[in-house]
């Protein structure tokens, strides 16, 4: 990084976050901060059973007019998110269930009252006559003959089955080593700090339904609301206020959104529903649950020949809008090969339907599970081959001279040096010192281990990728509007939504890079369908590349218009003018951007005769040069201590070396990686929503659903490599999700390294003391039998 760059506020500078002024002072406005006159609170009656036929829902006689069931929602359609992939089985998620309930927590009735407590009082009085059915709970048994059907008109509990075979039989010929493992990841709750919430009201003046909702994708929510309510899009305005974390949990059209929108239109009173943590945990544990049977084939020197995998994803009861029930499993098949090259591949996936909440893509989407399965398998293969985990990776990683690299599932890696990433991570660890410590043993009897995980993260992939899924949402050109204000400030309008990504800062930095206007004078407007260009929103690590590219594109056009006016006034060629530090500088003179704004808006008599009449407000669309996505990647390394008496795991050290391409704001990227890694540690060690055999969730509070806290997240060291992406405007790569991908694999490999002397291998997430103790007992029994 050059000296000049370090002091600028453009691309590459760790500008302090502009949004922190309100966030850190507690002045943000989140959904529950919105109070409207005459607003009513909504409490939902939710299914206490996982699977049941609804005989009747009885409204309490004294509160009949305050309780709404599906029959009361005239003309409202259920939520449908079909995939165009062949064989996809369609489900309709009712806004309020009326015939059957298919998971605990599914809404059955909406109760309205002056306060939430009173609405809950009414909800308690609603009588439910449910005929309980056997539930489909265990994903590996969902396809068994004789299992009850979650959707009766289906022939089996499968949304989608996929199969891919590339050169498999030929590739495995002559394999010296064949290693097979079974892995399992737990169902999780995403647990953003702020849950979901909706405030809806009818605006008499605009004749418009206004829906405030804690969402990552306001424009997509508007699409869905219009479809379900059967009204024109122009009748709906969706606003995302400050949103306290999303992670995918808010990348969805909610039945609660549809219901509140209807009630607000019908009753002409503002309606509010704020999800509480109990609703969140018991009714919306909706991510990450995978099962893998995976086999690796390698030559004697550790060269990978093929991977074979049967993967099951527990997709829950319905296909969620817009990502559908099959995104996760179909992703598994396409990303399983990770950053490795090998000639043979076979993968079958099943998106199975169960009586659990519909699955949603959580930060990293399928990658966290895939990385865990593949990387832990690789270590098992390395042990079998008697080579180091370092060596087996080095031997099989894609090499820098192969870029751009097309892998076995036709993913196009844009740039980077994966081997260098691995080497730098290993160097950062001081592996010899760890091995020496391991050999010496710990005074307290704990076992030390070190583990590696390397992965890539496709981000900002666009039309060509998503049109293939055939889901209700396909990203196209990302648009941004840049508007100079009469006093030389800038307004940026983007359809993506910032809910922790710091976009109000980083997009301002990008505009600053092009226009030289100070970020403090740049206002980023987002999260409002009335004010921003259409966008699929914030997901898939796409904002820095797509919204950033769109902002730059709009600012480029604005720049040429500014320079044209400045050139006229300074009597120089506009092409020679440079915009920097709020000034337009040409040979022999300069003019402030404030003056240019003032002239366009307030002194048009000074404009050149051939000025562009479109003025100083520009909307531009942007796509990357090829829309197959940027590939950021990282190597994670964990050093752990395992207590053989307690089964507990302490992370002693954690290192990350990553390539996010050119970093717009390195401090923000570090923040994303720290936060993601904390969530990955949750996946690795703590987070698990268990269900009993009748489909009842076993945790209703954070006392039972464990999230990592400050004490459980170590001080993580991050090193950046900045191989520019050739596809994006500044060489930036999508990086928002990566932190959450690596930890389960790195930690599991470290634990297995520590436990090799005990003959124990972990295969299930999270790695709780209970699971480890059970493994220890099993290993003891086995060794006693042998003895």
């Amino acid at each position: 990084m050059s000296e000049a760059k370090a002091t600028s506020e453009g691309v590459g500078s760790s500008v302090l976050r502009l949004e922190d002024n309100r966030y850190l002072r507690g002045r943000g406005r989140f959904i529950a901060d919105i109070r409207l006159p005459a607003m009513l609170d909504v409490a939902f009656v939710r299914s206490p059973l996982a699977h049941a036929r609804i005989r009747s829902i009885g409204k309490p006689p004294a509160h009949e007019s305050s309780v709404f069931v599906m029959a009361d929602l005239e003309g409202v359609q259920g939520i449908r998110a079909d995939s165009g992939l062949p064989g996809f089985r369609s489900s309709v998620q009712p806004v309020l269930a009326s015939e059957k309930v298919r998971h605990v927590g599914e809404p059955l009735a909406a109760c309205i009252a002056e306060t939430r407590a009173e609405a809950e009082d009414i909800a308690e009085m609603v009588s439910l006559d449910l005929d309980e059915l056997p539930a489909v709970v265990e994903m590996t048994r969902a396809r068994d003959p004789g299992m009850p059907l979650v959707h009766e008109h289906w022939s089996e509990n499968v949304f989608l089955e996929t199969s891919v075979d590339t050169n498999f039989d030929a590739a495995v010929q002559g394999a010296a080593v064949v290693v097979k493992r079974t892995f399992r990841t737990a169902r999780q709750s995403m647990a953003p700090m702020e849950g979901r919430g909706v405030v809806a009201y009818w605006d008499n003046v605009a004749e418009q339904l206004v829906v405030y909702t804690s969402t990552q994708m306001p424009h997509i929510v508007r699409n869905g609301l219009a479809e379900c309510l059967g009204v024109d899009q122009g009748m709906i305005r969706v606003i995302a206020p400050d949103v306290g974390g999303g992670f995918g949990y808010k990348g969805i059209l909610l039945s609660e959104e549809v219901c509140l929108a209807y009630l607000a239109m019908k009753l002409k009173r503002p309606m509010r529903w704020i999800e509480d943590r109990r609703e969140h945990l018991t009714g919306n544990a909706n991510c990450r649950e995978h099962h893998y049977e995976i086999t690796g084939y390698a030559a004697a020197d550790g060269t990978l020949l093929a991977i074979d995998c049967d993967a099951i994803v527990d997709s829950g009861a319905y296909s969620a809008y817009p990502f559908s029930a099959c995104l996760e499993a179909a992703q598994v098949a396409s990303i399983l090969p990770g950053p490795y090259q090998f000639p043979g591949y076979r993968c079958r996936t099943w998106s199975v339907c169960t009586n659990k909440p519909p699955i949603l893509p959580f930060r990293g989407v399928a990658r966290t599970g895939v990385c865990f399965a593949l990387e832990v398998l690789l270590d098992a293969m390395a042990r079998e081959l008697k080579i180091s985990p370092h060596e087996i990776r080095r031997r099989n990683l894609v090499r820098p001279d192969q870029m751009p690299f097309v892998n076995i599932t036709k993913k196009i890696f844009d740039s980077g040096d994966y081997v260098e990433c691995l080497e730098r991570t290993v160097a950062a660890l001081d592996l010899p010192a760890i091995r020496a410590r391991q050999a010496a043993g710990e005074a307290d009897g704990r076992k030390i281990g070190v583990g590696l995980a390397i992965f890539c993260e496709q981000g900002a992939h666009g039309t060509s990728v998503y049109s293939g899924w055939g889901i209700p949402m396909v990203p196209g050109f990302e648009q941004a509007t840049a508007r100079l204000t009469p006093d030389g400030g800038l307004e940026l309008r983007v359809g993506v939504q910032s809910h922790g990504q710091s976009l109000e800062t980083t997009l301002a930095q990008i505009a600053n890079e092009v226009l030289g206007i100070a970020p403090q004078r740049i206002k980023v407007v987002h999260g409002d369908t009335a004010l921003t260009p259409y966008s699929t929103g914030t997901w898939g690590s796409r904002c820095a590349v797509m919204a950033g590219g769109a902002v730059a594109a709009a600012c480029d056009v604005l720049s040429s218009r500014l320079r044209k006016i400045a050139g006229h006034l300074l009597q120089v060629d506009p092409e020679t003018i440079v915009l920097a530090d709020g000034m337009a500088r040409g040979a022999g003179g300069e003019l402030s951007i404030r003056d240019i704004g003032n002239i366009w808006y307030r002194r048009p008599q000074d404009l050149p005769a051939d000025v562009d009449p479109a003025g100083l407000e520009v909307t531009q669309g942007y796509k990357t040069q090829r829309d197959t996505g940027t590939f950021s990647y990282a190597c994670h390394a964990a050093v752990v201590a395992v207590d053989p008496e307690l089964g507990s795991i302490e992370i002693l050290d954690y290192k990350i070396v990553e390539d996010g391409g050119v970093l717009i704001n390195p401090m923000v990227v570090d923040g994303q990686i720290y936060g993601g890694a904390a969530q990955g540690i949750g996946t690795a060690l703590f987070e698990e929503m268990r269900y009993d055999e009748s489909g009842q969730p076993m945790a209703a509070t954070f006392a039972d659903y464990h999230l990592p806290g400050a004490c459980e997240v170590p001080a993580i060291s991050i090193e950046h490599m900045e191989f520019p992406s050739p596809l994006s405007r500044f060489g930036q790569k999508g990086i928002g999700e990566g932190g959450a991908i690596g930890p389960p694999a790195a930690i599991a490999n470290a634990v297995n390294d520590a436990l090799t002397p005990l003959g124990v291998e972990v295969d299930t997430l999270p790695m709780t003391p209970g699971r480890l103790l059970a493994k220890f007992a099993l290993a003891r029994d086995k060794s006693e039998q042998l003895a």
Partner: protein
Amino acid sequence: MKPVRFEYAPAATAAAASVLLARAADGAKTIAGGQSLGPMLNLRLARPPALVDVSQATDMRTARDEGDAILYGGAVTHAEIEDGDVPDATPGWLASAARRIAYRAVRNRGTIAGSLAHADPAADWVNVLTALGGHVVIARGSTLRTVALTDFFTGPFATVLEHDEVVAGVRVLKRGATARWGYWKFCLKAGDFAKASAAVLLDPDRKETRILLGAIEQPPVLLTDPSAILEGRRSLADVVRQAAPHLSDESRTLHIAALRRAIVLATSGAMPEVGS
């Protein structure tokens, strides 16, 4: 979720609280810091028609030195014990235990008597104060009775308290410089409820040796023949199996570890906060 409607009355003293409870509808409850009751109210698991708030009861907010013991007012908070705002009857053991109760936010409000009256078998004070031979002072109107903690808990989340009784205070005997103590608990993460705990008290001056097994889904158990355990004459596995036969294999494993580590702490002179 939000609580069902309830009446609320603050009490100026323990005696006044008792009178308010006596007058209140059946099922009225005492609230102090509300760190356990609050969530239960919100989840509608507790539905008391009335709450009597003792968090500002003046006679429950201070600690009194009684010479041989300290009498802690029931509404003294964990944070006040942690910070030394009240005297420690022991050589720092109470402050050390307090420091590892849940999180600071909980400790700022949670109270010593609230924890005991709630009687969660995994709670720190339930186990620590029982191991130290603590007594609760219970107010009914202006009448006080004293009950040893070994007799106070009748089951998980159950005590001998009558509906109009309030835990006004907790009496903890002073422990001198020759006394030794080990308290060890296993938590899945910092601030979590213990999955297993054990405490060991060796007080040669008072000729007391006590070993407690806690977080056993039931009130804690004081182990019989503690000297035999300390001298290694009984296997810890047998001891745990006998004292808490209902525990699962996993839980028993953790309790054996807790017991062994508490013994090490008490007998090696190591700092008591060493642990999980």
